[in-house]
């Protein structure tokens, strides 16, 4: 087995009373595009800074390529960082900014020049080398910062909210560019973000953080479809959580009594013990809204309280007899403006046995 390129070995970081990173154990493999996802203040930046060498762990070890770098200062670590504020040197031209890292290594001038040119081409900034950072647009600055961090060909590139300062359209475009560049240079990327859509579309693997801990790691699909706990289910996308108690287990088929709705729900491909208290996490797009009573075993009746038109789909909020509101997303398959159902109409919600997962905690 090959060594992971990054290994946080039970790392904890405290700032006084605040535990910013709490006993994190994480391995990242060569070539991954790993996203750290979590709410504000959950410790994402601190984790990156521990890896870059700007913070020392209170306990635990940080390994890069199998080598313990816990005591190695930032300027000797084979990782480079792209800062959230970009941190471009205001007194240097774009070229000088990009060349900075290579100059520190004492490379010959000619080689520096070719590599700077190459890096600028990679981020599509050819010809802007003579400008100062304050003569660039936000998107161009972002790309200078990227070129500067990439030019030393680090083992790992750290990106702290790389797209946060860009507007929505530029952000989407840059996402694809980041993926193209990662593909081209083949360096391991670790990107911090609080935007779950960004994490889903960029990363090959996501680590969801909460209060200094990593609560789940997995591919975007795993994180979305099989969240391991309520927090992850709720944090990634929107979700309906149906609280209940397991009343029957037949192999991987579990029956959950959802008392508030007064129904029994059947869940396939689950494992639980009888009498466990847990919840069914059900994504809105997995629910079908219909006027006639469906034949599916998992169904509940309610009244349409709200319909939100989103263009490609509609969000339908339905209030059940118990007063709980469930959310369903229906694709708009026809241009016809009149939907099959309207506000205050009585409808049925149904879903298949394999469309939800049980979450504990």
């Amino acid at each position, binding site marked *: 087995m090959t060594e992971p390129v990054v290994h946080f070995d039970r790392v904890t970081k405290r700032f006084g009373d605040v535990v910013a990173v709490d006993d994190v154990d994480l391995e990242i493999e060569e070539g991954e595009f790993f996203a750290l996802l979590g709410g504000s203040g959950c410790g994402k930046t601190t984790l990156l800074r521990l890896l*870059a*060498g*700007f913070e020392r762990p209170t306990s635990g070890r940080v390994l890069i390529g199998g080598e313990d770098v816990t005591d190695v*200062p*930032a*300027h*000797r670590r084979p*990782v*480079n*960082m792209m*800062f*959230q*504020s970009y*941190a*471009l*040197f*205001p*007194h240097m031209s774009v070229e000088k900014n990009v060349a*900075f*890292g290579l100059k*520190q*290594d004492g490379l010959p001038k000619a080689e520096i020049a070719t590599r700077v040119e190459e890096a600028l081409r990679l981020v599509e900034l050819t010809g802007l080398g003579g400008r100062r*950072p*304050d003569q660039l647009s936000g998107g161009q600055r972002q790309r200078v910062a990227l070129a*500067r*961090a990439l030019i*030393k060909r680090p083992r790992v590139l750290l990106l702290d909210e790389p797209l946060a300062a860009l507007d929505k359209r530029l952000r989407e475009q840059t996402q694809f560019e980041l993926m193209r560049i990662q593909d081209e240079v083949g360096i391991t990327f670790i990107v911090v973000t609080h935007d779950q859509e960004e994490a889903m579309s960029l990363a090959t693997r996501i680590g969801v953080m909460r209060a200094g801990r990593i609560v789940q790691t997995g591919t975007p699909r795993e994180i979305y479809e099989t969240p391991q706990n309520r927090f992850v289910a709720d944090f990634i996308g929107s979700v309906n959580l149906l609280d209940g108690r397991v009343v029957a287990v037949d192999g991987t088929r579990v029956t959950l009594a959802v008392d508030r709705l007064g129904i029994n729900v059947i869940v396939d491909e689950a494992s639980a013990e009888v009498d466990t208290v847990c919840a069914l996490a059900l994504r809105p797009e997995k629910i079908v809204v219909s006027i006639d009573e469906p034949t599916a075993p998992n169904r509940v009746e309610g009244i349409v309280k709200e319909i939100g038109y989103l263009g490609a789909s509609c969000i339908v909020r339905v209030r059940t007899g118990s007063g709980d509101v469930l959310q369903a997303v229906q694709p708009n398959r026809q241009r016809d403006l009149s939907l099959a159902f309207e506000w205050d109409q009585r409808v049925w919600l149904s879903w298949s046995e394999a469309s939800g997962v049980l979450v504990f905690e």
Partner: protein
Amino acid sequence: MNVRRFTALSFGLAFLYLPIVALVVYSFNASPRVTVWQGFSTRWYEALLHNEELITAAFLSLRIAAINATIAVVLGTLAAYTLVRYPRFRGRTLFTGMVAAPLVMPEVITGLSLLLLFVATQSLIGWPESRGVATITIAHITFSLAFVAVVVQARLVSFDESLEEAAQDLGAPPWRVFFLVTLPIIAPALVSGWLLAFTLSLDDLVIASFVSGPGASTLPMVVFSMVRRGLSPEINALATLFIGAVTLGIVGAVLLGRRSPRS
């Protein structure tokens, strides 16, 4: 602008600058009597050029001012850097207060205490052998340093520390980070501090008088003794040149202090 405000402002400015304007105007007076206008002339400026005592004193003052400013910038920057970058060391409050104290200390007290110090060290370790250029320079550094520290501190507070981290991240060891990134970015504040220290030293009469010795008279000291012997238009000419120099220094300091590289 409304009339009342304009009047008030004119009075204020007149109060401040009328004496100086009078001085400048009379420096171009042809008459040797200070208060009688006899037509335009630059004869007092020519006379100045032949006044050996004044010229020697002027060069001494400039030399002291330059050395003082240079050393004060180095020490003041170190003090400011420590205060801003290590915000939680023990005794920080005390140190902050101590760095700023010379700003408000009456000059007479600063001068007197420095004199006492020099007298004491002379009897203890035999240094300084005699008071003069060295003691004046040291005395000037002690208070200029405080001004430099304040100016540089202001610049460092608004300094984006991620710039230093970025440099370190790209492989620069801490000392290189300081010289390649920190220093160039705070340079305008250093120049501004230097000019300020230079001007302060050039201006100082009180402290220099305390710690000076025979044979080391700075320009303000010579002027002061000349004036006591009686007013002469020559002094007006000298003062005009002085005002010009100091104004340039201050304006330069302010302009440089204001200019900030956008980040």
